[in-house]
């Protein structure tokens, strides 16, 4: 509960905290650059309080930043009428983070591989690659009403985490 309280207080001035249950907190945020920075900062706090080390905290906060960038820029296209919904859930073995926009829906299959030689020198297109690199499980759920990124990081030492790494 402690991590939720701190994180919630931090972001509540920037958006609406619309759900704060025992192990879950979610926010409705504007489609602004400030949301991107706040989402990253809050993810860092939540991850720290969930017990991740500095390097893992950096990876988690960066993945959330990239997902928020995707939601604000590519999903909602800075539309003031569209919101970004950010949620953190601490389960027994995982930290589960979702970032959802209200855009047209992302077709992840059409995103070029940023490591392909012909794409290496492109100036964009690395965000989703970084999210996949930094999180243990990444699911992208597009629909006509928006795209949801579900990102999972296993808490080190948990039974599932050990099984997953084998």
């Amino acid at each position, binding site marked *: 509960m402690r991590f939720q309280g701190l994180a919630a207080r931090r972001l509540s001035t920037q958006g609406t905290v619309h759900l704060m249950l025992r192990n879950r907190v979610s926010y409705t945020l504007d489609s602004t650059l400030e949301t991107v920075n706040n989402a990253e900062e809050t993810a860092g706090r939540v991850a720290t309080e969930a017990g991740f080390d500095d390097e893992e905290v950096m990876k988690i906060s960066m993945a959330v930043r*990239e997902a928020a960038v995707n939601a604000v820029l590519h999903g909602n296209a800075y539309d003031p009428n569209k919101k970004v919904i950010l949620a953190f859930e601490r389960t027994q073995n995982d930290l589960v983070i979702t970032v959802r926009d209200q855009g047209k829906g992302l077709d992840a299959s059409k995103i070029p591989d940023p*490591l392909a030689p012909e794409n290496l020198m492109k100036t*964009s297109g690395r965000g989703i690659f*970084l999210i996949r*690199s930094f999180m243990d499980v990444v699911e992208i759920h597009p629909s006509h009403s928006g795209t949801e990124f579900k990102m999972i990081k296993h808490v080190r030492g948990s039974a599932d985490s050990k099984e997953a790494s084998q």
Partner: protein
Amino acid sequence: MTMKSSTRQVDGVTIVDLSGRITLGEGSVILRDTVRDLLSKGHKKILLNLGDVTYIDSSGIGELVSAYTTSKNQGGELKLLNLTKKVHDLLQITKLYTVFDVKDDEANAVKAFNK
């Protein structure tokens, strides 16, 4: 912490000392404007000192790529100096580490530019 940028000249090479975060928004814009301004003034040997860069996101990586290609396309050279572990690791996983000319010693980096 927002990004700060300052430039100095050493043996015909412009060293850009960057500090803070190169991220979407102000950080990326400052880097872009700095490099474009140098190239427009004929400073075509550019060494980006990233020793005090604490954080970089995909937008910042894109801006480094843009700075590199823009310099090259205008007949210039751009090298990177003093990567932190975070930036080093990011360039490794994005396969850009071998694309950039990365140096860890300022004097040697300056000498490495074509005279």
